[in-house]
């Protein structure tokens, strides 16, 4: 496949197999070996680069997605005579030890400073959360970013003219379909089995772990119709190709649907948030997904489209079992609709992971409820993740709570016991069933104690 992009400001016309990782093309074809591979699955950030100014993991991006975009790698950040202030600061503080994590870390630091020129220590920790370092203990890196904060830098090179689509070649091993209109995508979908690719954060990791790459891949990341957050008085429509970062950056989402914003903030780390999409999280149907319980608790409805038309399925009914959702082979997820909640609805999202970033929940809980004039609980919705093959709705606990006085003695403890009792989780590498029960109960209690 022929694609056009800029790399470090230089226009490049590349003839590549489309599903190769951007990382390999950078290292092997372009000789830009500064970008490193530490894991190949989005977890370490050693391969982080800027794509149109956003931090992304080059190990998770099939190279065709670079078409029409501006890539900046560590080699483009600075050189010996004109280093980026961050590069100088890292050397000065001792933030560079073995140096293997450093290129990715520098790209993450630059993305952070571009977005927030004077970050707080917490912002730095969050901004660099996806970049693991095994040498430094992280303190030096944080100091380095603080040192370089506020030092002006020359602007990143302008992105290329992204018009036109990549040109497929007859010998492409994988047939990648890159529609630029939804109706074309639906026609492609109807024409035969294909795997949908959006941000690639789940799929590319699965390929790296050994899942065979399918013959036909349908890319939805270029479909403008699937992107965006549309807020009306009645609610919001979130396009399926909307990224976590788009959600986090939306003031409306943070204000009106804080539980969803919190869930998005707790997903992965910045590069994953920039790449991963709402539709991908829904369709991937992982029992540990973070966004899904929040969407379910907020009464979200999945909007599915096909050439037959549109189908609307509440998130609570979308899952049929482990990794199995109600999306037909000719359909794709177009969006998710959320109604505007009552202004006094209390919403919360809790995640019990192991590490604060880049960790899949051992238990998560999205919870909503209102307290009426009499002090009674109304419209209680509790949706838990990682405790069942798919999201768990806790009907018994919810029903028990509905209408009960929030001030009732032992309310939280009794609800906790009920919730722990009504799930049948499994033991796995992340946690035992007994732990999951206890924690879920405690999180329900935490919500009720406010």
């Amino acid at each position: 496949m022929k694609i056009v992009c800029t790399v470090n400001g230089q226009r490049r016309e590349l003839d590549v197999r489309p599903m190769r990782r951007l990382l390999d093309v950078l290292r092997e074809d372009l000789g830009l070996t500064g970008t490193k591979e530490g894991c190949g699955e989005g977890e370490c950030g050693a391969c982080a680069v800027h794509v149109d100014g956003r931090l992304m993991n080059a190990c998770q991006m099939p190279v065709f997605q670079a078409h029409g975009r501006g890539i900046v790698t560590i080699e483009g950040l600075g050189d010996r005579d004109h280093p980026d202030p961050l590069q100088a600061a890292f050397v000065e503080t001792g933030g560079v030890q073995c140096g293997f994590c450093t290129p990715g870390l520098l790209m993450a630091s630059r993305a952070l400073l571009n977005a927030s020129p004077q970050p707080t220590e917490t912002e730095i920790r969050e901004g660099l959360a996806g970049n693991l370092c095994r040498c430094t203990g992280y303190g030096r890196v944080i100091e380095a970013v603080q040192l370089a904060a506020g030092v002006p830098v020359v602007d990143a090179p302008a992105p290329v003219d992204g018009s036109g689509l990549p040109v497929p070649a007859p010998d492409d091993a994988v047939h990648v379909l890159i529609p630029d209109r939804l109706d074309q995508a639906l026609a492609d979908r109807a024409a035969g089995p294909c795997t949908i690719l959006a941000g690639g954060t789940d799929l590319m990791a699965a390929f790296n772990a050994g899942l065979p790459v399918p013959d036909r891949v349908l890319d939805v990341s270029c479909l403008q119709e699937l992107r965006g957050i549309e807020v009306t008085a009645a609610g919001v429509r979130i396009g399926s190709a909307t990224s976590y970062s788009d959600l986090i950056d939306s003031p409306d989402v943070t204000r009106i649907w804080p539980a969803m914003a919190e869930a998005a903030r707790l997903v992965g780390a910045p590069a994953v948030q920039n790449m991963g999409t709402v539709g991908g999280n829904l369709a991937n149907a992982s029992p540990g997904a973070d966004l899904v319980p929040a969407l379910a608790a907020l009464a979200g409805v999945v909007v599915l489209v096909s050439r037959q038309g549109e189908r609307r399925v509440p998130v609570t009914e979308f899952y049929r079992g482990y990794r199995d959702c109600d999306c037909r082979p000719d359909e794709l997820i177009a969006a998710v609709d959320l109604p505007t909640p009552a202004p006094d609805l209390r919403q919360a999202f809790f995640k019990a992971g192991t590490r604060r970033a880049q960790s899949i929940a051992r238990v998560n809980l999205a919870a909503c409820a209102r307290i009426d004039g009499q002090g009674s609980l109304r419209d209680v919705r509790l949706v838990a993740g990682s405790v069942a093959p798919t999201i768990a709705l806790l009907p018994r606990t919810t029903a028990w709570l509905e209408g009960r006085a929030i001030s009732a003695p032992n309310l939280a403890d009794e609800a906790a016991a009920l919730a722990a009792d009504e799930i049948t989780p499994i033991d796995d590498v992340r946690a035992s069933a007994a732990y999951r029960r206890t924690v879920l109960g405690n999180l329900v209690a935490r919500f009720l104690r406010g």
Partner: protein
Amino acid sequence: MNEVGKSLPKIDGVGLALGRPAYTDDLAPRPALVVRALRSPHAFARLKSIDTAAAEAIDGVACVLTWRDVPRVAVTRAGQGHPEPSPRDRFILDEYVRHVGDEVAVVAADSEAAAVAALAALVVDYEVLEPVLDFEQAEDHATVLHSEPEIHENFPIGFEPTRNIASAYAMHVGDVDKVVQDAEVVLRRTYYTQAQQHVALEPMVCATWLDLHGRLNVLTSTQTPWHVRRIMARALEMPVGEIRVNKPRIGGGFGGKQMIHGELLCGLVTRRTGKAARMVYSRREVFAATNTRHPMRMDITLAADRGGHLRAIDMQALSDTGAYGEHALTVFMVAGAKTLPLYNKVEAVRFGGKTVYTNRVPGGAFRGYGAIQGNYALESALAELAHELDLDPVELRRMNMIAEGETSPIFAIMGEGTEGVAMTIDSCKLPACIDRGMELIGWGEKYPRREAGPEKVRGVGMALAMQGSGIPGIDMAAATLKLNDFGSFNLLIGATDLGTGSDTILAQIAAETLSVSTDLIKVYSSDTDRTPFDTGAYASSTTYVSGHAVRTAAQKMRAALLTEGAAMLGCAEKDAVFDGAEVRGPDGAISLEDLSTRLLYSQNQKQLCTTGSHLCEKSPPPYLAAFAEVEVDLGTGKVDLIDFVAVVDCGQAINPNLARVQVEGGLAQGIGMALTEEVRYGKRGTLLTGDMMTYRIPARQDIPRLTVELAASHEPSGPFGAKSVGEIGIDTPPAAIANAVFNAVGVRVRDLPLTAEKVLMALREGRAK
């Protein structure tokens, strides 16, 4: 001092920050065959047959190797001195596979895609055998992992493969049983430490090719180039001199690269095909097929009087070396040797136990090697004793710990794999480290606990540690200084900088000795052909042992400069001085630039080249006092580290900033071991933690600001007063954090890591009682 004691930036820092090509895979020749291994899906199996025909027929496949195609020579992959104290219990490839991930066969192809296709085309018939998965059941198990006639120990290490025992050890001083019987207080506890993995960000990677002369060149990410060369020569049945091993920049090692990994396979491919080859481990392969820290069970008995004076320590351990005995004995011994001398006032001390084989990822070298396991057990037990006696845990340590001018009989009894060397402690600033640490953490106000919110409690805990500085009588290092025209120097060292900054530190030592500025010293390190020898970067030896060699080389260079300078000035040598810029005599001076240039081009022409070599004679311990503050979430059991203070006595720090970063990095790894890191297996021995999502090293938000201070100290035997600092940082976090959690919520977790789950379940049980 001008150069030593200065926090100079790392000499390779700028290049690395610019992303310049530096690591093995950046520099490996292209084109090169892609080497990939087929890895066992079974924990234990015999390879009944391997059909390679379909794989060999694939376009682009250059060779397929199975156990039938490789020399039958028993080796160890442990990068240790010669002869190795680890059993020679493996082959390049074998008829048996002994853990999930063990190598079944190897393919080499001219593209990644062809290599992957070839792996998929191999048809293997496995005879699946019953694995040994529980190390406490391994000894005399019905399943015997190793019954190959060729395997052997190089000298007595207690190797009994028919009983699944890789090594055994026992020592004692005094009559422990008697003291225990008489003692007022006896505390018996059992602790478990888990398998931890290094997770250096750069995976294992190597490349091989034949040079002009047909010699095998190896570019590899290793901590021990000479050991790699020697072991490769043995395994491939070729003369050592026909192999050259070179290490470029390394993306972290931590002991993980003190083992041979792809080098044997890659080297064999190049020998067979004549072509360049390169092998890059995927992260999943690193997890499944390299090494872990040896998990251990430690049964510990402390005897004391009511006042808290320790009278006896008994430490009996069982260590799990997994499928192969890499570093089996030496890691085991360090668990005692680098912990027990800390409390030298006891009347009796005993240490011993076995290292057993199981069908798991092999144990291996890992920063803190044995010491962290022993430290967790001993420092936890001391805290438990203090609690029982109602004593401040700090006081208990103060009463019993070693002091300057003292010794321990253990130094002479225990070395690494062999006997040790007696020594007196000439530098030990533990009292100062403890005082300062208490002040920094605010021990007075914070001990033992305080509420920190509705469902959160904070507590503080502490631990002490000692380490060593090289292995006496074994570790040897050499350095050569070469004077160049116009006054620069090359420092050629065998020492292996694995990202720690040792090239920088050694350049500083040379510069200080020569009174020149560090940037005049151009370092070239660890190439078996081009630099002098070094045993390698392990056992905290580089600064102390290699540093000495550099200093000696530089002293000789200094003397040579004086001789030659005086000759050119026409004065007596004793009347000449060298200040780094010029050699000055009574009647004139000649600049270094001028002198060096004349020596090579015009006057009294000769090359000045000096070599120093140093054998480690003693191993002065660095010391560390650690204080941790944690916050426990009562709803989830999650332990958040709030503050960690470490005050270190590492002698005179050659480069204080780099020394501190070494400690900080060690602490972070110790924190991972304490809280989140654990290699876990499924019922049939499959690896459950095969990626970075399930095996969790600390991320940025898990590590609070670490407060590391260096105590003023000077070790008379060290170069410029230095001791080691590379490992000690890792030792204390497990015990200090476990002690802090106990102080916070009264829960004592005796098996690492302290996961949220263990803490919560223990809290619940406590509440139920």
